[in-house]
């Protein structure tokens, strides 16, 4: 809202500046509760983990480039493979989508000044960082988890994995799950309660719907993973029996619980990408998305995703009737995806698309998603799944979907919101080049994996003999992985260069339809000088409404410059009903995260008494935090 403001308005804005200012320097970052700063922290941390996961992938690809290659020992390979999967999923995609994109954009898109629970938001970040460092500590002690990202028992029991490797995995993921749960709670409460006046549920941006669906999925999916991991730790360290047959346990219990989490998980990964696509497409195609249908599809994907888990277990010898049920459910889950695919493509086809870099990435995403989705459907044909499960065909399926479909929109989103976050424009030519490199690299890396799977290459092998003719495919995949990496480096190079040298972007370079484009770039700490009032699903395309906002700033309506405040409204219709005082910066979230981290370290090293002390300290820190009430700050 870069309006020329007259004196009373200017004073109000100055007051807001003062109220919302946070301490400068490192201390400011350590105690921040500003969702944008926390979003950036998430962004850089998740990016670093992406780099780590990517390097792990490149090392694996190097080892697999030739038959009988001796670059890595099997032990190292297993650790790299496991850490690659765990890192990419838990330390990159989820924090990047919910933590970085969700945190930064959701309050802006719904016209709020912060998340519903700002301090808990900071806590989520510190917990996430600590859990990531906890797990990565294992890499440096050569005891990284090594039983694959789904960590099947009995391989993961101490009888077969006596080291600390699996404990790093189990405790690290429990720890990480706490952080993700906190973020999810925060995002749900924020989308429910803090929407700008007039933004009823059916006017909430589709991106926020996607994030809402993701958060709901996290809420209902993570507990089964947590329970599974707790069982595993109890069995490994305290001699409980959940998974061993001799004492009445069952190894398949692990698989059921893991996949009961694991399938919703993949929609947790893909849904933010859907949300990003539904943000970028209308902007560049100059056409609104079909609204209720797509919102419904986003929620439905998340919902049906809970009913398909056993399609990961088609070869375990479950009764045929069970298999058939889950196959049918897996086919049903296609329909909401198909609705979205056609909603996007029809919008592009009927619109007047302008293929700037973000839209190119979305185009690439659609093509890669369709390929990956269609191979997913093939798995719902049980006999075919039973033939190709645990081969590179599966690796091909999920990289097309996970890298091609989940990460491409993330990359497109980097470009799309870069001007908003930095106030500068990226370099379009380099952007397009980076797209083509990444796109072709992706195809070359992951397409041959389909063929390899069909001609018999199992996944998770650290080497293979030369006699089977797998070498050339593997080599081309390795070449592809490096091309793809080059593309990614061009992206990051472009963004870093543009951060300092790019031309100024102005508040709204793309003429986007959602509210984040209604404020300056980068947004001020209070996001909006005046809380916008919304009358449609694409509020920034309602010129009159935005002009009215400017007028209200003059008059001082909904400026809320008396305190550190944001309005809260009713859940469905977004009728504002109170102005809530938001807590400001606080050192306690960091302190709580620190105590929790020490608690987990003590559990890992089996100092249970000391762990008890840290648990008590965590509780004390939480109490201290909450005795500082927002209005007292």
């Amino acid at each position, binding site marked *: 809202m870069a309006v020329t403001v007259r004196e009373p308005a200017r004073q109000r804005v100055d007051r807001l500046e003062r109220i919302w200012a946070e301490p400068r320097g490192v201390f400011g970052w350590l105690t921040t509760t500003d969702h944008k700063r926390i979003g950036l922290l998430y962004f850089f941390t998740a990016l670093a983990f992406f780099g780590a996961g990517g390097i792990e992938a490149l090392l694996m690809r190097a080892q697999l480039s030739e038959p009988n290659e001796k670059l890595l020992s099997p032990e190292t390979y297993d650790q790299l493979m496991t850490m690659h999967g765990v890192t990419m999923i838990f330390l990159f995609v989820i924090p990047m989508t919910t933590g970085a994109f969700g945190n930064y954009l959701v309050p802006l898109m719904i016209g709020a000044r912060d998340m519903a629970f700002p301090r808990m938001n900071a806590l989520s970040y510190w917990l996430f960082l600590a859990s990531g460092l906890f797990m990565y500590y294992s890499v440096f002690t050569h005891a990284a988890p090594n039983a694959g990202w789904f960590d099947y028992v009995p391989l993961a029991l101490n009888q077969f994995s006596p080291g600390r490797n699996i404990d790093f995995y189990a405790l690290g993921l429990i720890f990480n799950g706490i952080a993700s749960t906190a973020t999810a709670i925060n995002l749900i409460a924020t989308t429910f309660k803090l929407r700008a006046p007039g933004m009823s549920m059916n006017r909430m941006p589709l991106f926020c719907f996607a994030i809402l669906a993701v958060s709901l999925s996290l809420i209902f999916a993570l507990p089964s993973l947590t329970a599974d991991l707790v069982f595993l730790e109890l069995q490994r360290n305290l001699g409980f029996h959940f998974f061993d047959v001799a004492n009445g346990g069952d190894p398949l219990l692990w698989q059921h619980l893991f996949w009961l989490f694991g399938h919703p998980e993949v929609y947790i990964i893909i849904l933010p990408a859907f949300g990003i696509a539904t943000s970028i497409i209308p902007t560049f195609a100059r056409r*609104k998305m079909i609204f209720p249908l797509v919102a419904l599809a986003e929620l439905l994907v998340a919902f049906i995703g809970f009913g398909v888990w056993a399609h990961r277990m088609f070869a375990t010898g479950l009764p045929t009737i069970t298999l058939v049920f889950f196959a049918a459910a897996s086919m049903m889950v296609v329909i909401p995806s198909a609705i979205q695919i056609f909603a996007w*493509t029809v919008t592009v*086809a009927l619109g007047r*698309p302008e293929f700037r870099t973000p839209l190119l990435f979305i185009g690439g995403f659609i093509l890669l998603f369709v*390929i990956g989705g*269609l191979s997913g459907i093939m798995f719902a044909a049980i006999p075919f799944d039973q*033939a190709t499960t645990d081969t590179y065909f599966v690796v091909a399926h999920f990289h097309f979907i996970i890298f091609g479909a989940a990460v491409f929109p993330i990359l497109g989103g980097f470009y799309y919101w870069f001007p908003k976050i930095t106030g500068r424009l990226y370099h379009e030519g380099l952007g397009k080049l980076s797209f083509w490199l990444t796109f*072709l690299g992706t195809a070359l890396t992951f397409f041959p994996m389909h063929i390899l799977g069909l001609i018999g290459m*199992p996944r998770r092998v650290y080497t293979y003999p030369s006699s089977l003719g797998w070498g050339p495919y593997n080599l081309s995949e390795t*070449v592809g992985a490096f091309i793809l990496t080059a593309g990614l480096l061009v992206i990051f190079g472009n963004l870093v260069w543009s951060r300092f040298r790019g031309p100024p972007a102005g508040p709204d370079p793309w003429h986007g339809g959602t509210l984040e484009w209604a404020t300056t770039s980068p947004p001020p700490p209070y996001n909006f000088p005046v809380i916008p009032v919304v009358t449609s699903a694409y509020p920034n395309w309602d010129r009159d409404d935005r002009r009215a906002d400017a007028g209200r700033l003059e008059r001082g309506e909904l400026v809320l410059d008396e305190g550190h405040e944001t309005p809260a409204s009713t859940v469905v219709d977004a009728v504002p009903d109170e102005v809530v005082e938001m807590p400001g910066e606080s050192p306690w979230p960091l302190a709580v995260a620190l105590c929790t981290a020490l608690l987990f370290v003590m559990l890992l090293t089996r100092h249970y008494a000391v762990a008890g002390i840290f648990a008590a300290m965590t509780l004390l820190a939480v109490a201290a935090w909450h005795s500082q009430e927002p209005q007292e700050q």
Partner: protein
Amino acid sequence: MREVRKEIRPNRAVFEPGERGGLRRSLVRAGWIATGAAAALVFPAAAWAGDDQNALHPASKQEHSISVLWWVMLAGCSIGFCVVATLLLLGWVRRNRDSLPFGGGDRAGTAIVVGLGVFVPIVVLSSLFVWSDLFLIRTTEAPAANSTRMSIQVIGHDWWWEVRYPGGRAVTANEIHIPVRTRVDVAGTTADVIHSFWVPELNRKADLIPGRVNHLLLDADRPGEYRGQCAEFCGQQHAHMAMYVFADPPDVFRRWLANEERPARQPATAQAREGQHLFLSLPCSGCHMIRGTSADGTIGPDLTHLATRKTLAALTLPNHPPDLARWIEDPQRYKPGSKMPGFSLTSRERDALVAYLEGLK
């Protein structure tokens, strides 16, 4: 509305500075060359790849239906892909056209989305479901109890396969013989972690899970050797847990089985006798069984007829005297992490052991 486009226009000049074009073009060309080179590697490869472990070279009814399923689904999916790609292409063709911005939300669009996104998938998927999951699945289902002429037991170990024939008299490892054109039931389980039994040219896979027995049908159409490999990650040497299934003509099979059921041959030469003595006095006998001797270990493979096998250690090495010697001296070099330790032997001892083991026909 007009005013909006004016806001966007000037930006375009800023985004695409013309003088960068040269650099961009050459980088794009470099990308194409690299891609082309790699593609050139891939496609000839298709010609020579894959006679060994290829799920699309069916040698049984079961695998045949799986590969038909694949080709049909591939055709269907190609059509689906083309539909989506066409829509995108349509957008590409119409890119950057001038027209009023911000359309959308109209009925035509919704109708296409509902048609292509709801009705077509329902029809296509129901057909696929009925065909593959209700009918085809019967071909690859586990054989009904006692419906086969023969039942063999396969037990997964870290990292090799134990194979037991009916009556428990014939026990071998990693190389399974079955009579051709005969339905054979494989009853699979495991001694330690989860493994998965998979011979791509013959049938789907079956996981071998503690506490369960999973059944799988082997019914080879034609004689031959079919390579298979463990498909479930089972630890360090998951990569070296392969096996062969030999589908033999009935008389060959009968002869093989009869030999396999006999206890081990007595060593024929002095050197071999020395080897036997060594085998029984070294730790070998604690882990390996040689029927007819006092060696009765069960940790490693049964070696009673080792010399009839083509390979060693789950297809890690060919079964030739020099390789056998290397294996006994340093298994960890070929299969790091294997449960068999290395032994420092004099060359005389080693040769004696090899002579004995190679005599176990």
